[in-house]
């Protein structure tokens, strides 16, 4: 900053307002502001903003129906053990992501997915500080056996994001199954089972610890892997 000509950068003014500049820099800014009406005005506006922000009311009134909605949910918790997840389809994820994958062999992807899933399972176990019980059924059925209220909103939103696309890819794969190499289909199914197990573990862990950000990331990443594996499988050439 050459004080006579150049204005103080906004970032520097912001740090000045926070009082975190070192003494020499603080003095330079102070001197410049005293001699520059533009910077003086910018600093005054900034301080007005900070004063107004810290004075905003700490409490705001929620919608009047909110407690009723909450009450309904917590009362339902006691007897809501078997309801299925609602169908909430809002987006079709990953349509534009195809170009991100350059592996020509889908089984390289499947193998990579399995390795990554094993790692994420270990992370899940470490987060829970207890051994992870490997699920014997697919993630979809795990989700259905958990009460709706046991899954945090983030898990429900992630599931809803992927549900439609995964379903369509599954259908496509089923339709093409007869024309594919049987050994290949076996490998696909094996890889899908491993990913489903990891998703199920993440769902169970999230039900226990809904605020755990790492578990949300693991759940999302495993859905991405499942999506990509199914997409690659659906694009396989027929063996006949």
């Amino acid at each position, binding site marked *: 900053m050459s004080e006579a000509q150049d204005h103080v950068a*906004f970032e520097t003014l912001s740090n000045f307002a926070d009082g975190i500049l070192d003494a020499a820099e603080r003095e330079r800014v102070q001197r410049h502001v005293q001699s520059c009406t533009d910077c003086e005005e910018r600093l005054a506006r900034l301080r007005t*903003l900070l004063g*107004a*922000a810290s004075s905003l009311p700490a409490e705001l009134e929620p919608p009047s129906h*909110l407690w009723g909605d909450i009450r309904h949910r917590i009362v339902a918790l006691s007897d809501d053990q078997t309801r299925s997840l609602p169908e909430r389809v809002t987006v079709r994820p990953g349509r534009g992501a195809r170009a991100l994958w350059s592996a020509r062999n889908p089984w390289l992807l499947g193998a990579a997915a399995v390795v990554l899933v094993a790692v994420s399972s270990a992370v899940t176990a470490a987060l829970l500080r207890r051994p992870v019980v490997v699920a014997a059924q697919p993630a979809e059925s795990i989700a259905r056996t958990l009460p709706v209220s046991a899954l945090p909103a983030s898990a429900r939103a992630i599931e809803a994001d992927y549900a439609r696309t995964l379903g369509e890819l599954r259908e496509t794969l089923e339709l093409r199954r007869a024309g594919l190499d049987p050994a290949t289909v076996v490998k696909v199914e094996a890889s899908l089972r491993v990913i489903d197990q990891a998703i199920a573990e993440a769902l169970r862990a999230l039900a226990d610890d809904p605020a755990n950000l790492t578990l949300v990331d693991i759940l999302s990443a495993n859905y991405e892997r499942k999506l990509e594996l199914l997409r690659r499988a659906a694009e396989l050439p027929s063996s006949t």
Partner: protein
Amino acid sequence: MLTDLVNPRSTTIEMPPPDRDDEPRRVARACAGDVTAFEELYRDHVGRIFALSLRLTGDRARAAELTQDVFVQAWERLSAFRGESAFSSWLHRNALNALLMRARADKRRSARVQLAEDARSPSAGDNDVPGVDGSVPPIDIEQAIDLERAIASLPPGARQVFVLHDVAGYRHDEIARMTGLAAGTLRAQLHRARRLLVEALKK
């Protein structure tokens, strides 16, 4: 989004301060399944949690949904509350974790939607990255009249840091721990938010 934010400053709750002395008893009753006791705890704390939700999301409907989730989770996890800190601290910590987790999930979903739709313009995303030329995106003059509205119009990343630091009063190290943001990124987002707001309120 902004249409949902109906003049929040005029809707401040005017209620007597919560009876903190009675709070442990209410918590104990709620732990035992007393919904009425839990409602009293809700009445004491919902204003602050809803305010934080609304400012972090900029959307009244989403803020209500998040607040609902926070209290349902609190009910489910009451047995984990050991009384080592004030109930309000425990509740707000859980709420903040849930709100930030939702913000991250929203950000991922937004990115996926952008990919899925082969977004035509970079601004179609959550607009977290400042312009290459350092320019300040214009904010509608009507939005700038009210600070709450101007905050709601900030890009999500900048809004989150501004609300946590300049409105809610969290320290940099606390925000870094909660959000996982690096110190440099956090400061950059804070400067950006302040610059956008100063520009908006100048008009």
